[in-house]
């Protein structure tokens, strides 16, 4: 039981990170119906940005860890947003109205480009970050096994919850969110009503990237190491989360993320840690084949 609760805590932490990335996939799919294959690599770039900003803040500017993290979070979201804006503007927007697979192929190219660009300019080796918030808060003890929640796990869950709340407010209550939801339903009609569709799509990419940047900061904090090839697997897992939750649905992405995080940690704890990625990939295949609408998604009606 104690191990189960410990794994539950670990799984929810990991799940928050996947959920944050999954939102980027689901929003982009919702608005332009495209699988943004490069999103996992945008997440990886954001983690590198966070790493470098953190080093700049702590070593060059002499900030403490908490203000440095705050600065990294804000600046990281802005710069990653700019990255994704540029990617959308150059690689995806000109392809709107091109043939069906063109945006996906362009996104695959962009994904290869991003990971190899980072390899070239930052080097192929792992980048370790000094560990932070290493204290663990003990919760209870059972048969000599102490269940604890790490301070960084608390930070991750709190920051994720706060930012998801903020994001929820933006999508539900602001004019931008309204425009975004309108474009999702019917782009032509939204344009007729005076909504700048291109701008809304760009902002969707920026929002998705900002949440991926939060995930990047959390990832660096949690694992303490980043590599140029670390975008692919979390990206596919977050996509699995988005599909499992029902692609296009925002609460679905968060629920899917938490589920994938839980499944992964439970699988590693009780079955085999070697096959944890196989489990995630299998869930992706099984969901797409047997439950293509996911848990909360709308069925897609094909019109001729």
């Amino acid at each position, binding site marked *: 039981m104690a191990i189960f609760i410990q794994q539950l805590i670990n799984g929810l932490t990991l799940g928050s990170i996947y959920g944050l990335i999954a939102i980027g996939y689901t929003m982009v799919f919702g608005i332009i119906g495209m*699988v943004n294959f490069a999103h996992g690599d945008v997440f990886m770039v954001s983690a590198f940005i966070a790493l470098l900003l953190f080093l700049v803040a702590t070593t060059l500017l002499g900030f403490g860890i908490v203000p440095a993290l705050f600065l990294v979070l804000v600046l990281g979201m802005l710069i990653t947003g700019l990255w994704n804006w540029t990617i959308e503007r150059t690689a995806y927007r000109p392809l709107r109205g091109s043939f069906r697979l063109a945006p996906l192929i362009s996104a695959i190219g962009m994904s290869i480009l991003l990971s190899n660009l980072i390899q070239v300019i930052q080097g192929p080796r792992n980048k370790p970050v000094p560990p932070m918030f290493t204290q663990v808060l003990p919760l209870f003890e059972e048969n000599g096994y102490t269940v604890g929640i790490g301070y960084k796990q608390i930070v991750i869950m709190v920051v994720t919850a706060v930012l998801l709340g903020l994001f929820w407010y933006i999508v539900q209550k602001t004019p931008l969110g309204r425009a975004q939801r309108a474009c999702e339903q019917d782009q032509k009609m939204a344009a007729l009503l005076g909504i700048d569709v291109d701008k809304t799509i760009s902002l969707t990419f920026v929002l998705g990237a900002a949440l991926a940047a939060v995930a990047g900061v959390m990832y660096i904090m949690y694992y303490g190491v980043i590599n140029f090839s670390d975008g692919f697997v979390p990206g596919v897992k977050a996509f699995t989360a988005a599909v499992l939750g029902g692609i296009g649905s925002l609460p679905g992405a968060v629920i899917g993320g938490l589920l994938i995080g839980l499944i992964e940690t439970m699988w590693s704890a009780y079955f085999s840690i070697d096959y944890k990625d196989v489990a995630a990939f299998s869930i992706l295949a099984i969901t797409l084949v047997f439950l293509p609408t996911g848990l909360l998604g709308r069925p897609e009606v094909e019109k001729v």
Partner: protein
Amino acid sequence: MTQANTPSSTEAFDLVQAVKDAGFAGMVTFGLCVPIVAFRAEQDMANKLVLQQRWWMALVITGLVIVARFLFSLHQHSRRNDHAQQAPAGTSSALALIKPYLAPLGFGFITIYPLMMLAIHGPSGSIKWIDNFGIQILIYVMLGWGLNIVVGLAGLLDLGYVAFYAVGAYSYALIATKVIPETFPFLGVWAFWICLPISGLLAALWGILLGFPVLRLRGDYLAIVTLAFGEIIRLVLINWVDFSNGYAGLSSIPRPSFFGIPFNASDTGFAAVFNLEFSPIYRTIFLYYVILVLSLMTAYVTLKLRRLPVGRAWEALREDEIACRSLGINTTITKLTAFSIGAMFGGFAGCFFAARQGFISPESFVFLESAQILAIVVLGGMGSLFGVVVASIALVGGIEILRELDFLKEVFGPTFDPSQYRMLVFGVAMVLMMLWKPRGLISTRDPSVVYKERKAISGSMVQEGHG
């Protein structure tokens, strides 16, 4: 970028706007570069990260982008004016003139290529040229042609093609190192020739197994599921150590024999039988011709299939799935045949790969390999056989040639290794290709079936349905 152009008048070049655009692009680039290019984190002796500042690099990149954006404005302007003055010409006449000779010339060249290299570089110097250039490029040509059946003809985006390559390679490696020596030792020298069809069949079987549940999915979902399957196969190969020896891979895989005569220095070896001096070059040349024949077979089968009803059904399926279904084409069977035939050629290539290397490990079958093969098909113009050849030569051979150029080392420093940039080039090329010509380099293709006279169809004129 896509302003409506007025066809009648030539407009003046808007310098202010161009400068503004270039400045904006520069500002964005500098913003992108700020942490990620201007700083580099490197480990010191104590394994601690220290920052290096490289502002000059960020400034250089920004400058380059500003210049490029400005030139792009100029180019757009001149192109608009050209459009206004004259209608776009048809296919260039020079190309049309040499076109009939292109195929026999190219064919002749690839047939005598190893002998030419042998004559130029001698027996020991030519191995590199035949192996690194000839065989390496031909493997990618064959993989490209195999994937072309799936992506180019049937329009199914397969991101896990490397899985079938792996199935072929592991089939050969396991059968030739475990099954044959234990049960049929007298077949030893024939191992490659027996396993070649078996690997192809096994790969095709896997194509059917994996394809059956997923082929009713939409295009991009299908792509993701094939990617998942490719990764699952690779992860199983890594973790199932008893079966595949995990990360360590399988080694001492038997090399192919010259139809029963092994390539070794013994009395019954190839060199002794044909009264030649022993040299490893003979095996390399032989391998070159094997892969050449295998890839030509792929091309031949593709061309033949395109004329059969199943091939026409593939192309119809690519253009409009809903129309296909309403005309009574069984889309599942049609997709499945494309998938399994494509997989079969992947299996042949895998078998050859294992026999050529003598060693395989899961490292050779990562997702990037799939992406690389896909890039070759996409850049070559989906559905075009000739395009795949051009793209393989440019992307696989081009990087190899860059490695040979010594003066680049003097320009970029002694640590310059172009293979580091190889995948970067692939990525950039894929994006640019989609922007510039989504249908690929060679987008004009001959129709499979003609009535009275042959007309070329430009890919850009083909409307694609969705489904």
